[in-house]
């Protein structure tokens, strides 16, 4: 049991933390240069200099491009057509062809944007040089090197835009929820399956006392795991922790009320461990997906967004992310905490009502 409680969360944290990563960097691309002029080589240097791309193949023809993309050896192909350098020297507009593997549409969008930006940067530089040349010819005048209007970006909370900082706090939620939900559901069902439940029932113990007694140890374990997984997250991944640990534990207790309550509910409707496990997975999976962990709630259809108001994982996700990344306090988070308490009490209450001290 100790192994089950302590080892999987850490393993899950490590696997999730490293694998769940939407950052698109070091994407392998193929470069087909049909022009071979200094200008095309400068463009190649721009792509090679960008941390987003890695030129790994230099295909010679159409079939090779087809094969590289079919095999997923590269995620994009940049093709410079003959006459590129000549057009630039003449001051004429020209193009660069970029073929993107659209199989993963999210990465494809990011790669398309990045590639366009690299080309735009190169183009901006060329334009600057062209203008300087024009001015040298036409005489002195106001020289403006940069564009007239530009944007200065300020990224809050996650300055390097590392997706780990976004996902790892979410993994903490996931691990706690899954473990406590499953263990609680199994706790009572196990007794039912092995027959020891009948022994418990002939004692004077009341339903509520039985349930509390069964679940409080898991609550303690749950809180311990919050501490452990948070510590591991900070140590292994270097995630920022800007809020109050005490607040995190308090909110975790409120969240545990809901998972333990739901676990109890499942155990009252299941007669075998298999049913309990399948039921807990069946409800946990959508709850997890619809919590805003990996897919923003904002992107969901409106009806589904309303549905998430009933999802305790959603609230705890907001709380955890807020405390880790934004350092916000109870003054901002009180609606989430209230929601957790309401849902938790409802679930526990429902379980107590359903729990019949009978043999059925």
């Amino acid at each position, binding site marked *: 049991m100790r*192994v*089950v409680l302590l080892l999987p969360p850490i393993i*899950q944290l490590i*696997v999730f933390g*490293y*694998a769940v990563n*939407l950052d*698109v960097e070091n*994407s*392998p691309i193929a470069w087909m240069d049909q022009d071979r002029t200094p200008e095309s080589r400068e463009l190649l240097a721009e792509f090679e200099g960008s941390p987003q791309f890695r030129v790994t193949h230099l295909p010679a023809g159409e079939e090779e491009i087809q094969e590289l*993309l*079919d*095999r997923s050896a590269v*995620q994009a192909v940049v093709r410079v057509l003959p006459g590129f350098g000549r057009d*630039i020297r003449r001051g004429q*507009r020209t193009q*660069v062809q970029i*073929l*993107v593997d*659209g*199989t993963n*549409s*999210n990465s494809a969008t*990011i790669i398309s*944007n990045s*590639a366009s930006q690299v*080309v735009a940067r190169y*183009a901006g530089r*060329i334009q600057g040089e062209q203008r300087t040349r024009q001015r040298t010819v036409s005489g002195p005048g106001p020289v*403006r090197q940069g564009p*007239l*209007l530009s*944007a*200065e*970006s*300020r*990224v809050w909370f*996650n*300055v390097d835009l590392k997706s780990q900082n*976004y996902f790892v706090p979410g993994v903490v939620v996931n691990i706690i929820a899954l473990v406590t939900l499953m263990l609680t559901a199994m706790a009572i069902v196990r007794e039912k*399956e092995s027959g020891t439940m009948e022994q418990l029932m002939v004692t004077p113990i009341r339903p509520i006392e039985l349930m509390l007694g069964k679940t409080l140890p898991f609550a303690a374990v749950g809180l311990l795991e919050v501490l452990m997984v948070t510590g591991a997250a900070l140590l292994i991944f270097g995630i920022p922790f800007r809020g109050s640990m005490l607040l995190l534990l308090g909110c975790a207790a409120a969240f545990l009320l809901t998972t333990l309550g739901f676990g109890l509910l499942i155990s009252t409707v299941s007669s075998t461990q*298999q*049913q309990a*496990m*399948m039921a807990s997975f*069946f409800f946990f999976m959508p709850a997890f*997906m*619809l919590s805003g962990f*990996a*897919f*923003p709630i904002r*992107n*969901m*259809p409106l009806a*589904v967004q309303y549905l998430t108001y009933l999802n305790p994982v959603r609230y705890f996700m*907001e709380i955890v*992310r807020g405390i880790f*990344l*934004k350092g916000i306090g109870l003054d*901002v988070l009180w609606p989430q905490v209230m929601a957790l308490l309401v849902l938790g009490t409802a679930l526990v209450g429902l379980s107590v009502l359903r729990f019949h001290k009978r043999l059925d």
Partner: protein
Amino acid sequence: MNLRRTRAMASKELRHIWRDARSLIIALALPVIMLLLFGYALSLDVDHIPTLIFDSDGSPESRALIARFEGSRYFEILGFVDDYRTIERSIDREECLIAVVIPKEFSRNLLTGKEVQVQLIIDGSDSNTASIALGYAEALVANHALALQSAQEGGTQTPLPVEARLRVWYNSDLKSQNYIVPGLLAVILMIISALLTSLTIAREWEMGTMEQLLSTPLRPAELVLGKMSAYFAVGAIDTVIVIVVGVLIFEVPLRGSLFFLAVSCFIFLFGALCWGILISAIAGSQLLAYQLGMMTSFLPAFLLSGFIYSIENVPAPIQMFTFLVPARYFITLLKGIFLKGIGFELLALEVAFLTAFATLVFLTATRMVKRTVV
């Protein structure tokens, strides 16, 4: 191997499955739920980004820039604010994702030809959405800058000398369903094998019925094959559900051979189910079997197979590890058959690995069951 005994084992297991209505319903409803979730509800596409505008200038020039944001489908203007505090509070409460701050000297600088900057404040917590949103916002400002520049230089638009022409292959409208639904098949099959089969032998041990089974002439290989066949039926039904719904309702293209698809699914399912049985034989209790099943079947299939999170962007040691994950090969097969329409020639390696995996796991499972007998 005696086929009659194997069939007897399979029919016993099928009867168990049939009698446990709840588990069966969940096993069949799960693919539908996941298809609904991933097909309709979950999306990484970025648009209607909630935006706040802080316009300190209030001139026709600043309003021209704001009009661009208003006209873009990517941005949804929540309102206009007068200070940074309101922006801070709004971002803290996750009401707005990006704020555009136009400085006082905006119009003055533009009219006198001096450089000026607008500030884009963005909530970086969700880095994926933030990167994409930032990209759109910067592009919008850059376009506006170009328009202003050409207006200043005499009316004719002098665009950039070099332009990127983009073409997207295989999934030209960049529908996220097209890449999620094929991958979902792998995840669902892994879940079924992890949830159902990993419990089966452990349960027999816990109940005490395993000893009864072992006292019969039933051989370990027949036990494994029999149990696996029963769950194979459930897995096959799930496969058909996902493929039919994916192709008919979500209009995921199926450009490759249906026969090849069926064969690949068959091999993968065989291997996944045997893996579940192997775990079941090793684990002492149902609880442990379930945990092992989750960690070795479901998690790798979900995270390390290229389903949503591409393997290329993961640290090298973990990339190495993904070569051991059967779901990774299956997803390559699925995406290849559905979206790229490629055939056996390019996918031979994947098929070979899955076949080797299935055989190896079957033999090991049989060995493990035999070992626990003695």
